[in-house]
């Protein structure tokens, strides 16, 4: 009877402790409903068990994220304890952020120094890197039958890709290359982070250069082998699974579904290289603490938990974001994720790499500038018009000028 009372008392105490320690985590990542549910039901419960801290996860669109942090900052009183966002999200809310450099020695893994440095903005450690993502290619093994002779898929060039897609078309009569070009697709990332850096060396500065003209003419030719429904596709996992395409480029999270479903059929490989090198985007997300955080100690506890190798692998398994902590990279279990991770590390480690960043702090209209140019020259197939390119380039530079934002890598 006494032991029962003791247990009851213990349960009550833990309950009270947990009730006292509730923190709110606002994030521009894990926003889709199934990802948010996964965070709440799978990622966070072990943390609450270990520490007794309840976490109220709040997925937020970028605009609401910025508005809310700014409002709390101006009010001098906050409800948000910890935030998660992309590198660019942090640069938009810099004045509201506390320096988190004191947390670095307590992170339970090794963070790559380059990433830690990247997360330093405005003289403070603005965030602790949490996870990374990129965009690469996934191929169906059936496509290897048509691979042009002497081509190495781990060091593919855009010319190789063209020859490969042409081979498939000539053999089967079907256009089996997939580029997501639907309204909700990430096509703009392909243009500003992959095509432009690979062909011109820059994503902004050489927008209307001669190299850019040659790039658009190349894309017009390549487009002839892209599946005709591409302008309706937002993600490439389904077309890969149905066999509508054999070679596809997209975000890792939007390719993962295909590999998880049939891991034996697909390989993830680096994106192609152009005349200037292998342009690709590294997306870096991190964790920060607002100056107005009501409970910065509990927030730091959550950051330490999320950067542990176990949580890092769990994030990869749950939502397909890749670990930043070095100890986690070796801990990825075999299967779909290992296949993707192999492609990601091959791309990141390629000798001709040109790393691009996603523009931050400027109007999202830049996406439209890249996409409209693509629509005009590639989807509609109009002749490459240098005057139009010049106008778009001017508008693009204006957007950076208006916001006073620096050009993202590789330009800046």
């Amino acid at each position: 009877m006494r032991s029962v009372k003791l247990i009851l008392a213990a349960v009550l105490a833990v309950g009270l402790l947990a009730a006292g320690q509730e923190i709110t985590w606002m994030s521009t990542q894990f926003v889709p409903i199934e990802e948010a549910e996964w965070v709440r039901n799978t990622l966070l419960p072990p943390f609450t068990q270990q520490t007794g801290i309840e976490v109220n996860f709040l997925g937020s669109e970028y605009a609401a994220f910025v508005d809310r942090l700014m409002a709390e900052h101006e009010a001098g009183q906050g409800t948000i304890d910890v935030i998660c966002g992309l590198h660019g999200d942090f640069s938009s809310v810099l004045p509201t952020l506390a320096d988190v450099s004191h947390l670095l020695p307590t992170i339970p893994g090794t963070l790559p120094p380059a990433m830690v440095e990247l997360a330093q903005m405005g003289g403070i450690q603005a965030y602790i890197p949490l996870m990374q993502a990129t965009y690469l290619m996934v191929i169906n093994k059936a496509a290897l039958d048509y691979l042009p002779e002497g081509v190495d898929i781990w060091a593919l060039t855009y010319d190789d890709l063209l020859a490969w897609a042409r081979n498939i078309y000539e053999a089967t009569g079907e256009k089996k290359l997939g580029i997501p070009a639907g309204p909700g697709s990430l096509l703009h990332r392909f243009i500003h982070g992959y095509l432009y850096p690979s062909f011109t060396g820059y994503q902004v500065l050489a927008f209307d250069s001669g190299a850019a003209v040659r790039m658009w003419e190349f894309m017009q030719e390549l487009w002839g082998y892209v599946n005709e429904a591409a302008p309706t596709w937002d993600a490439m996992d389904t077309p890969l699974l149905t066999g509508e395409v054999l070679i596809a480029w997209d975000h890792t999270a939007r390719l993962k579904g295909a590999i998880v479903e049939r891991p034996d059929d697909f390989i993830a490989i680096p994106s192609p290289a152009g005349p200037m090198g292998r342009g690709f985007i590294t997306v870096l997300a991190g964790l920060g603490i607002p100056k107005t955080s009501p409970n910065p100690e509990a927030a730091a506890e959550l950051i330490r938990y999320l950067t542990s190798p176990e949580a890092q692998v769990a994030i990869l398994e749950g939502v397909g974001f890749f670990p930043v902590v070095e100890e986690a990279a070796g801990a990825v279990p075999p299967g779909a994720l290992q296949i993707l991770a192999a492609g990601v590390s091959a791309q990141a480690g390629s000798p001709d790499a040109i790393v691009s960043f996603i523009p931050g702090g400027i109007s999202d209209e830049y996406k439209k500038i890249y996409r409209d140019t693509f629509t005009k020259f590639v989807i509609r197939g109009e002749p490459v018009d240098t005057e139009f390119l010049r106008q778009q380039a001017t508008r693009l530079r204006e957007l950076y000028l208006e916001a006073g934002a620096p050009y993202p890598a590789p330009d800046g």
Partner: protein
Amino acid sequence: MNWRRFLGTDTLLPYLLLLPTLAYLLVFFLVPLGNAISLSFWGEEGFTAQHFLGMFQDVKFGEAIKNTFFLALSIVPLQLITALLLAMLVNTRFRGSKFFLYLYALPLGISDLAAGLVWLAIFTQHGYLNSILMALGLIERPIYFISYQNVGLTFLTIVLAEHWRATAIVLVILVAGLQMISRDYLEAAEVLGAKRWQKLWYVILPLLKPSLQSALIIRTIFALQMFAVAIALGGEIVPVLAGESYYWYSSYRNPHIASAYAVLLMAISLGMTWVYLRFLRTRPEVTRL
């Protein structure tokens, strides 16, 4: 309790009863409407036409306005004809006609995006239609119904989907209109020796005009605003005005140009409504026979 005494006068009652609706309209319709109009005309330096200029210069603008008009022009007449035929069929009150009325009205209960996705599953490269055609040996490899190289065909899939989805609303209005036509007129016409098509042309259609007018106004406005079905099936291939407004707001985060698109759409809708009211006007003496 004496209601009339309580309310002071019985002429006040209708206005009091209207109040909740008016409040609803004010909060959820008039205020946002005013906001949208001011967003489209006001910039940092006050009144400006800059947002409308931005809209006109948009690479997608020409195509979006063309598609929006063509879609409305192809969908609405087609729906009107189908709905009229179905309404007259249902109105013959054959056995089980009620059942058919409910069956035809079924798509009304489906969200437009869901309807678009259903039709996408039919028309996509490895969709139901291609699978059936290939299984029957009619084609060797899939037809690209949805293709940037064949905008016409993609356009047709949208017309079909929208026709399937939204004809029922016209049907319901027309059935109600038909049921209001007194049998006396038709019997009188028969006595005077009118043939079938004469009854349709000289009796039914003129008496149905008020219903036709409402159906046309509702359907044309909704067709102009059509968005989810066009996005699901046409993606970037068939841009429409409502879609561009949405993308300017949500993807490119420019509420000013998004509002300019919305205000343009409203102006077009108002214009079309005026045209219907003007040209389908029913003279009182005709209806009050």
